[in-house]
């Protein structure tokens, strides 16, 4: 896996599944015999990681959706953390 850049197109890692759980009122990440409950911002980032959108596009989309500026450092930090946990992967 290459180093993360704004061009990187992250996707949910193999063996993991992301879905919205109404009962728990949050996004969850499912993996063999386990589950991670994602907080609001983690869920919003992860659900945009479809393997097609670049990090730049994800940041732009989030800034638009939440009328915010300067989200890139936080988004990148989360994506790197998630990759360490294998929640996200890219080429």
């Amino acid at each position: 896996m290459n180093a993360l850049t704004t061009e990187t197109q992250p996707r949910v890692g193999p063996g993991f599944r992301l879905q919205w759980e109404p009962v728990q009122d949050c996004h969850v990440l499912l993996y063999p015999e386990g589950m991670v409950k994602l907080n609001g911002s983690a869920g919003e980032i992860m659900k945009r990681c479809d393997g097609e959108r670049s990090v730049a596009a994800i940041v732009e989309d989030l800034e638009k959706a939440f009328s915010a500026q300067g989200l890139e450092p936080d988004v990148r930090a989360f994506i790197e953390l998630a990759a360490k946990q294998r929640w996200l992967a890219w080429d």
Partner: protein
Amino acid sequence: MTPTQGPPLWLLAELTYRCPLHCVFCYNPVDFARQEDELSTDDWLRVLRQGRELGAVQCGLSGGEPLLRDDLEVIVAEAHRLGYYTNLLTSGVGLTEARAAALKQAGLDHVQLSFQDSTREMNDFLSHTKTFGLKNKVAQVIKANGWPMVMNVVIHRMNIDHIDRIIGMAAELGAEYLELANTQYYSWAFLNRDQLLPTHEQLRRAEAVTDEWRRRLGDTMRLFFVAPDYHEGKAKKCVNGWGSMFLTVAPDGTALPCHTAKMLPGLSFPNVREHSVRDIWFDSEGFNRYRGTGWMKEPCASCDQREVDLGGCRCQAWLLAQDPAMADPVCHKSPHHHLVQAAVERAGSAPVGKAVVEHPLVFRDPANSRRLTAKPA
């Protein structure tokens, strides 16, 4: 029911008690051969739907050997469609390429491949012969289908000294996760406890070897060493708390808070043929009896660890102290802890490689099941 009771997140469907293997540490009930009744396909599909409506997300398909159900693909497909993460817990016996392809097509998310057995089969496995050939083939099938490779080995006195080779083989087979699960002493494992219980010394060595492999493997394979509670003097929160997130459905439809709870006396568990999963989870006596801490006796009731371990395992309390509401005897504060200590001491007093007591291992097979549970005429 406590007002904050959450949903059953984990639904374990024990599809059948039938199994081609005869593992001496099996946790299936000793009288399994007297429980031949199995739920129909439609029953299972209804249970899956009801569980998912409550919020269950993980679905384990287990047994016995679940591949012996020829409707497994139908069950997996519905579980997947409903949004469960589907886990097949299998010995790999019967997982042909065709069957694997059909399960992949049905949406199976994950296969947990177990290495069984002591004695003959384990020897085969350790010496790279017949069993290893089968596991190797199944491992390739798992890889070819893009499933995460999760392996499980039950550890005991007779294989724990081979842990280096066990981990080495898992690495060779490309496992991403390896669970080294020390035997839990219920059911068949309890019958064979004296032959299976490792010594303190064996455990220390095995943990050191596992740590060394962790350093060597880094992130490529994750190793979980499930410590045995007999040696630790510490009770574990059983199934993360009675009725807190696990729901097991036995082959005949009996709903249980854990897969061995049926052994407990004075408690009836509802059947999914007669009750909805919602009623079972929230309102049945069987699921409510040991929820929380209100049922506890001393020393648990006033213990500062009571919320941490919730008194440990009810089945172990029943098996060792003959009272399911007592503290789990593995806890050093239990008035019955000496029974656990005595068993561990006995394990340490006999040379490793030799059985502690001179009686044969009891294999989990239908004939033994019937013999051991025969009612006097």
